[in-house]
């Protein structure tokens, strides 16, 4: 506690750096994985190998991936770009399968009905597939968010600042309080973003919650 009371501005700075690395990676993962997941659902012959490749990608340990990316892309090793690319790779690998499952779970009759009343394929995607797949997609995004926040700490080993810096710095200078602060701050940040996503889900897709208490509360609404 003493350590934190003396160093909290530093912790806040690092938490901001942590968010600046993880939030773009999470957004990129969603933007890439949702269309790819839908492709995998629509064309199982492409989708099978695609999902297999995704699970292989996810198997690659984080630190080696951080070292291989600069050699492949020419980005500097100690850079936010390398970090965000690596985090996006994991995010996409994790989310593609959930996205494919989410679209598979949408009832074909609903889709057929939408086509029958004259929706274009694009409208079917935006107005039928995406809203109905949303709850499952969101649960996938929450898993990606929590794991991304944890993974960012690995970047501290190659010198990219984040809350992980508290772990490496605390270890090198033998300050257990600093390491503990790093662990707790990372977990809290993960829980915070997870909670925000949960709230976003309730606001953006109220029907997923309305399904349960509808009977009792319908009168006042």
């Amino acid at each position, binding site marked *: 506690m003493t350590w934190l009371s003396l160093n909290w501005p530093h912790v806040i700075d690092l938490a901001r750096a942590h968010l600046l690395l993880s939030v773009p990676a999470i957004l990129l993962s969603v933007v890439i994985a949702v269309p790819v997941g839908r492709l995998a659902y629509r064309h199982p012959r492409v989708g099978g190998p695609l999902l297999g490749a995704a699970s*292989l990608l996810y198997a690659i*340990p984080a*630190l*080696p991936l951080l070292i291989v990316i600069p050699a492949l892309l020419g980005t500097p090793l100690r850079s936010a770009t390398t970090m965000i690319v690596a985090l996006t790779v994991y995010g996409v690998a994790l989310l593609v399968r959930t996205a494919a499952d989410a679209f598979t779970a949408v009832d074909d009759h609903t889709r057929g009905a939408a086509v029958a009343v004259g929706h274009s394929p694009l409208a079917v995607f935006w107005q039928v597939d995406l809203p109905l797949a949303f709850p499952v997609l969101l649960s996938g995004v929450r898993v990606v968010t*929590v794991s991304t926040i944890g993974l960012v700490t*690995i970047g501290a080993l190659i010198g990219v600042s984040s809350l992980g810096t508290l772990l490496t710095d605390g270890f090198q200078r033998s300050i257990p309080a600093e390491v503990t602060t790093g*662990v707790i701050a990372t*977990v809290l940040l993960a829980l915070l973003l997870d909670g925000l996503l949960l709230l976003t889900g309730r606001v953006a897709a109220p029907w997923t919650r309305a399904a349960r208490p509808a009977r009792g509360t319908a009168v006042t609404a």
Partner: protein
Amino acid sequence: MNLIAEALAWLAEPANWSGPGGIPARTGQHLAITALTILLAGLIAWPAGVLIGHTRRGAGIVGALTGAARAIPTLGLLTLFGLGLGIGLTAPLLALIVLAIPSLLAGTYAGIQAIDPAIPAAARAIGMSPAQVILTVEVPLAMPVIIGGLRSATLQVVATATLAAYTADIGLGRYLFAGLKSRDYTEMLGGALVVVALTLVLEVALAICQSVARRIVDPASRTQRTPA
């Protein structure tokens, strides 16, 4: 691309393939600590998972445990144990065991939980003891999912064992940290490629084990259905 060529040259260098710091020795260490971790974590997680799955009680604890474990940064656990227990094998080993337990536990419990309750009930009805029900009915039927848990635990441990070289002198991670310290990108990249290759081999091998187990469990259910 030039960097990759240099790393491949590093990999082809005979000097890197011999002695206590050579690639075979480091790979051996890496696999040994992974196997030891899985074994020790399994001694705790497998019986606990079987018990939770068999009694169908305590599922909430498993859910909370695996959820919390996902949020804890692995590097944090390694450095905390490293600070508490000093440089040596004990600290990373304990940290790795803590990290491996949730996956093993979740796989075992989920596998047994997913079995149709009528099957163990039938086994009891023909006079099997609880131990027989567990060992000859539930565990074999849950095997594909148990191996699935083993698969994710193994990958997690191999990856984290790479980081363990930060606090102790073990495994393939040494190449990465030695390279980082001396700014020798070739050594780092060479070491990274070895770790990636090792992980992919393990992932594919365990995936094959899992599908073989599934095929052994599945024909049984198919032959049950067809005679009718």
